[in-house]
């Protein structure tokens, strides 16, 4: 007989209740099962009304972030047996409005994403006929890490600053800005720096470093933010010393 584990799942149905409650479900605790498999077992076999997001089940689509026993996690990469004998407590990610059950609203992030101009900015576009931009493996490695973000939002859920100040651009958006700034094909870093130097840009970060700890893809947003602050400080120092412009 299989072992079972108790999952305590946050439920919130805004049409019926004013605040979240918890429901308990018993699910099989197979060796290969991740927390997400437990949730799907609940949805398929026990309670079809439970809502959560998921898609790829291989840690690349970024859909299934939740709070598992108090920690932000991708539920497709969190094995049930690691929580045995249980219970496993499932809640929506923190710092976001809850839409329903384990589903949070992330429109704020989607809007912030556009503001950092996450695309290659060029004074002049290179014609296709001239072939590719040369970029050595060393140049690629300068930004590669910051290009690995899957937008799973775990870093926002872990970020105490975002929790207090929703205006803060947040770890993933800043890391993505840095991804383009450090790309040898891009010429938009000055535009992005102006934008990010604003209060809600980079300065709000107090370097707690929780974002880097919870990142499932080793993007190191905290490092990106620190580096950005340094660049911004140097730029404003240069502006002060060399007001006729050397940047």
């Amino acid at each position: 007989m299989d072992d079972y584990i108790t999952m305590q799942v946050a439920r919130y149905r805004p049409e019926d209740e004013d605040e979240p409650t918890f429901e308990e479900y018993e699910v099989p605790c197979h060796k290969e099962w991740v927390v997400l498999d437990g949730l799907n077992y609940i949805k398929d076999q026990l309670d079809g009304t439970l809502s959560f997001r998921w898609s790829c089940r291989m840690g690349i689509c970024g859909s299934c972030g939740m709070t598992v026993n108090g920690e932000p996690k991708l539920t497709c990469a969190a094995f049930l047996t690691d929580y045995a004998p249980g219970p496993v407590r499932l809640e929506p990610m923190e710092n976001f409005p809850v839409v329903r059950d384990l589903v949070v609203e992330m429109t704020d992030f989607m809007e912030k994403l556009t503001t950092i101009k996450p695309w290659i900015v060029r004074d002049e576009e290179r014609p296709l006929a001239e072939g590719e931009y040369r970029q050595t493996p060393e140049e690629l490695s300068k930004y590669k890490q910051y290009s690995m973000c899957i937008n799973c939002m775990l870093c926002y859920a872990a970020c105490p600053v975002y929790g207090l100040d929703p205006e803060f651009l947040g770890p993933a958006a800043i890391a993505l800005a840095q991804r383009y700034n450090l790309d040898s094909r891009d010429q938009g870093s000055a535009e992005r720096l102006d934008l990010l130097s604003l209060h809600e840009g980079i300065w709000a970060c107090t370097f707690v470093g929780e974002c880097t700890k919870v990142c499932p893809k080793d993007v190191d947003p905290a490092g990106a933010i620190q580096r950005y602050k340094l660049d911004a400080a140097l730029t404003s120092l240069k502006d002060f010393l060399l007001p006729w412009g050397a940047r």
Partner: protein
Amino acid sequence: MTASHDVVLVGGGGAGLRAAIAIAEINPRLRIAVVSKVYPMRSHTVSAEGGAAAVISEDDSLDEHAYDTISGGDWMCDQDAVEAFVTEAPQELLRLEHWGCPWSRTPEGRVAVRSFGGMKNKRTWFAADKTGFHMLHTLFQTSLKYTSVVRYDEWFVTKLLIDDGRVQGVVAIELMSGKIQPILAKAVILCTGGCGRLFPFTTNASIKNGDGMALAYSAGAPLKDMEFVQYHPTGLPFTGILITEAARSEGGWLVNKDGYRYLQDYDLGTPEPKPVLRSMELGPRDRLSQAFIKEVEKGRAIDGPYGAVVHLDLRHLGSKVIDAKIPFVRELCRKYQNIDPVTEMIPVRPVIHYIMGGVHTDIDGATPLAGLYAAGEVACVSINGANRLGSNSLTELLVFGARAGRAAAEYASSQPDPNSSLLAQAEDEERRLERDFLHKTDGVERPATIRTEMQETMEQATGIYRSGEELTEAADRLRELQGRFRNVAVQDSSRTFNTELTTVLELSSMLDVAESIVHSALRREESRGAHQRTDFTDRDDERFLAHSLIYRNSDGSSRVEYLPVTITRWPPGERVYGR
């Protein structure tokens, strides 16, 4: 006020975003909407690993890419479409380079290419082994700079709106609010991807339910070549997580329980220590998956807790090559299988990965229904024929996404505004969704039970080898499941993010698409590419060098017609690998 656009894209993956950008660039005045049931960066393009094919080296040629594709597809590809595809492929990948895609590079800074199954030259561009992820994020982020593109994120399309013989929009549910409303358009492009979830064991994400195929099919458009379903030879047991073909192009070996590279017994060449193009582990996916079944029959596979497996051996590559070229393989094996490919062999078995068939389109993505276009896996142009070569599909998203975008833009520019009578149709659709699902209280069938039975039926009847007998049984079984579906129970009657409703709507699509596959497979009495019949073991060019087109009749039954394959310069011949 009713939402109205010039072009609506259903689906925000690689094909949809490429199409959106193409339209925005051609005519910035066109109002474009991307309607997707998930945020675009969640789309399944994200999971593609190995790479995207396009001729770039001086010692390669477009004709060779075309020949590899056509022979790989067992001569079911339309050769005019393949020629357009290989010709436009390099510029499309280059454009993505200009948009910032982090392609892996040579030491000199040129774009690097790797070998891939069934390809005679190295022409697969790659971004380590997260190529689809990087392509999708590059496309999505680039799309953000076009202000004429608006998005309907997490809107689920339930119906195409048709009036006067023209598709003029969709009805969709906004998941967050539960609002059901029409989104009108002069042209609609389906970019919803494939349908791997019809099967119990698949690399496909949970969102791959054939939604777009079912939308088109219900609206009267034919589905083409649906019998051709691809098994990828190397999936992890239980999860079905894909281990990319790039693992073999970097030098990985497939071995049986005796440590023997068994592919040499299946007319795929002789084993060499280093990978040889179009040979052994770099043979095409259909032949490798068939060889696996034969090994199991000979008792030379390895018994595992989730059925028979063989081993993919990467140990001789060493950690340096693995970490540089296929780091995601190592990450996935460690995280999901608890093994390290640097020191251990990876258990693998064939897994449902892709469907060559799809909504019938011409070379510009146009379907026979005016105003309706399709691109990407949902469509069948066809460049993939009876068996797709690895790394052609990511390129296909770009080439045919752009083509469909351009064609739809031109069409939409000449059309009048959508007809207001469509609003009545949209109200009917809302009433249908309420009556059949949201307000229904007397259903008894659990959706997951029907889904599981459908998946078992499909695996049994439309696997790597098929027979008329099993297909006939499956057709009966699916008809019964369709009947039971009318009695489906929906426990969740709320409007807010009702994922049980979407689950049930997806199941409805899957049942329709499943029937189209089974009926198309039953009618094709030959063996070709991924369609292998134990009762008709040879290829039959006389009768079946033709695409199947399956139509839905008004009574819910179907009919299959045939359309000759377009042959331009490569007459049908033998598929030769490793000799």
